[in-house]
């Protein structure tokens, strides 16, 4: 018995060793053809609660690469995209290292989870390779954890809060009003709440209550009863992903009369809830209803390729890829350090909105307009992809883009050398 067990164990070991050897032999074969193409790595979560957004991210980056290659590529070389599921911070870190060291990518684009984003940024900085963050909102990533090789096309949490805040100020929902907020109990939610509190303190509002919601909570009825008893002036969501879907569906189910606003939002969440199941005012970084020429062109190409319109995450990954390629073509180099210097000089980019954007030199945040959206009642929805109306850009045409962004005092960043 013992004998046979140990024999089995030996066989398993042998098989494992053989597999490892095969794997090692496989590596050089994959890196052939390096001279002819420019490799770009794409990492984003495709499974787990951010998976639905990751799916759009991958569609966006693939469309961008198709278009760039069709119009001559980067310095006459085709882009070769290596896209993988980032899974979690540990895996993201390992995969980022492998993309840089083995596959020799010239830049990494993507990510949605701020924790994984930080992991990728650390590896990228160590290797002096560009990382374009397309979906992580955390203020800290732009502040305490900032670094020279990381750029943010996704808006920071503060920008989301201030953009929605502008709409709430306009509607008289802030001064002297009582807010009841539900906050997802992890870094993202806490970050939003911090910015919301700063905003409320500056504008004379107060919180009737701010409650933490465990990230695995799916039934909100108990929270809704509490909200109903508190009779707030405004219900505020600092929730994330699928939780927003659940919360909004159940809020509508209970038919509470209080207006709703939220600070974290992705269009895919609303599509997943369905018409008439979401209400209120929310911030948004981009939508296919934006009327700029490049936005319409992108929407058309995306819809043609995938049979459905793009949303904010597809925009982020599509546009970042375009920015990277544009910078490389203009500078005639794929050297990350040279590109960083170029971007830090305030190079302007088409961000598919009514005015151009630029990467702010001290924290590398893309300065850009934001939007707020207001959901339509079910009977006014004629197209299942257009559940809300889009506001004019925030800030307004004659205001500085900086007014919605965190200041140096809010979110200090010291770039490590």
């Amino acid at each position: 018995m013992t004998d046979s067990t140990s024999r089995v164990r030996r066989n398993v070991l042998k098989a494992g060793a053989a597999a490892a050897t095969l794997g090692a032999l496989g590596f050089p074969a994959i890196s052939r053809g390096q001279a002819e193409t420019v490799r770009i790595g794409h990492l984003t979560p495709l499974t787990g609660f951010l998976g639905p957004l990751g799916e759009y991210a991958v569609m966006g980056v693939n469309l961008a690469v198709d278009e760039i290659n069709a119009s001559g590529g980067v310095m006459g070389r085709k882009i070769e995209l290596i896209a993988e599921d980032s899974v979690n911070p540990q895996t993201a870190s390992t995969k980022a290292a492998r993309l840089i060291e083995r596959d020799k990518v010239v830049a990494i684009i993507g990510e949605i989870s701020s924790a994984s984003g930080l992991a990728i940024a650390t590896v990228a900085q160590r290797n002096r390779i560009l990382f374009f963050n397309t979906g992580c909102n955390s203020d800290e990533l732009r502040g305490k954890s900032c670094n020279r090789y990381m750029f943010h096309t996704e808006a920071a949490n503060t920008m989301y809060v201030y953009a929605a805040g502008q709409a709430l100020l306009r509607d008289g929902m802030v001064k002297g009003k009582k807010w009841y907020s539900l906050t997802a109990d992890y870094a993202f939610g806490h970050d939003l709440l911090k910015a919301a509190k700063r905003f409320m303190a500056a504008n004379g509002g107060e919180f009737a209550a701010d409650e933490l919601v465990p990230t695995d909570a799916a039934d909100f009825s108990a929270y809704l009863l509490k909200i109903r008893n508190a009779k707030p002036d405004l219900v505020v969501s600092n929730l994330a992903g699928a939780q927003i879907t659940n919360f909004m569906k159940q809020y509508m189910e209970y038919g509470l009369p209080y207006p709703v606003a939220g600070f974290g939002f992705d269009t895919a969440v609303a599509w997943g809830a369905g018409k008439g199941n979401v209400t209120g005012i929310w911030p948004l970084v981009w939508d296919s209803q934006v009327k700029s020429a490049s936005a319409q062109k992108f929407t058309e190409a995306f819809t043609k390729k995938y049979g459905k319109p793009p949303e904010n995450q597809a925009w982020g990954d599509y546009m970042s890829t375009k920015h990277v390629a544009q910078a490389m073509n203009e500078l005639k180099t794929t050297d990350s350090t040279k590109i960083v210097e170029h971007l830090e000089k305030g190079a302007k980019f088409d961000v598919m909105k009514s005015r151009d954007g630029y990467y702010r030199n001290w924290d590398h945040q893309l300065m850009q307009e934001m939007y707020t959206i207001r959901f339509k009642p079910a009977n006014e929805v004629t197209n299942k992809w257009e559940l809300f109306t889009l506001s004019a850009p925030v800030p307004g045409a004659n205001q500085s883009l900086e007014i919605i962004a965190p200041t140096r005092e809010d979110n200090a960043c010291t770039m490590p050398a």
Partner: protein
Amino acid sequence: MVLIQVLEQVINGLLVGAYYLLIALGLSLIFSLGGLVNLAHGAFYALGAYLAVKLVDVLGFGGVLFASPVLVALIGLVVERFLFRRFYREDPALGLLMTFGLAMVAEQALRLIFGASPLPFSIPQSLKGQLLVGDFIYSKYRLVMLAIAACAVAALWFLLRRTPFGRVVRAGVQNPDMVAALGISLQPYMSAVVAISVALAALAGVLLAPISGVHPAMGAEILTAAFVVVVIGGLGSFWGVVWAALIVGVVRGLTVYFYPAAAEASIYLLMVLVLLVRPRGLFGERIQRFE
């Protein structure tokens, strides 16, 4: 005032218990009779919800309430025939691994077929609205949901306690060898139990689809809470599972009232406490082969 609000949470918690009950009952049945920890049970719940979303335009909500569980039961029969059946007599760890794998395959299959994005689904127009009783508010849809769940549970109880079928199943739970010695093959009963159990999970999927997200990971999300209910209730006990579901609902509701950040943690703490005092769960029977 506080007392009234606490009472409101208690009543709501009882309603929420129905949330877990339909899934936990099936889980408990399959384990009690087959000795199989079915980690893929959540997948049948998700499948029930997806079928409802896809068929509702053709059949209406009333139609999918029947059609979806029936279709899932048929799929359950196939899965039982080709997978589960091989593991009843094996080491429980093997069955655990098999159903764990099956759960992952099912989740990825849903993702491949329907996409990773959640699918929209709404409460049927006729069931929208709220009922106000004094100071309390109830969603009409949840009351209907509770009624349907209660009917399903009552029917299952009748089947297990008052029919010849149920007598064999209960005997099989206690002592399968004796049942075999009496010349009764448990196999067809096991097939039926799996079909009924997964149909209940699918029914829960249909009922919850209008008030939560329909997405590939929904099965994995609800399964842990359902397991907690089974463990608290005790194996082999019908009423144990029912009581446990209600208690879990109430404990969760009260935690949301007093300390919301711990709402989900509270049910695990409850499980630890119950297991410390009663290792077999609240109403767990002594089952010889599991001791």
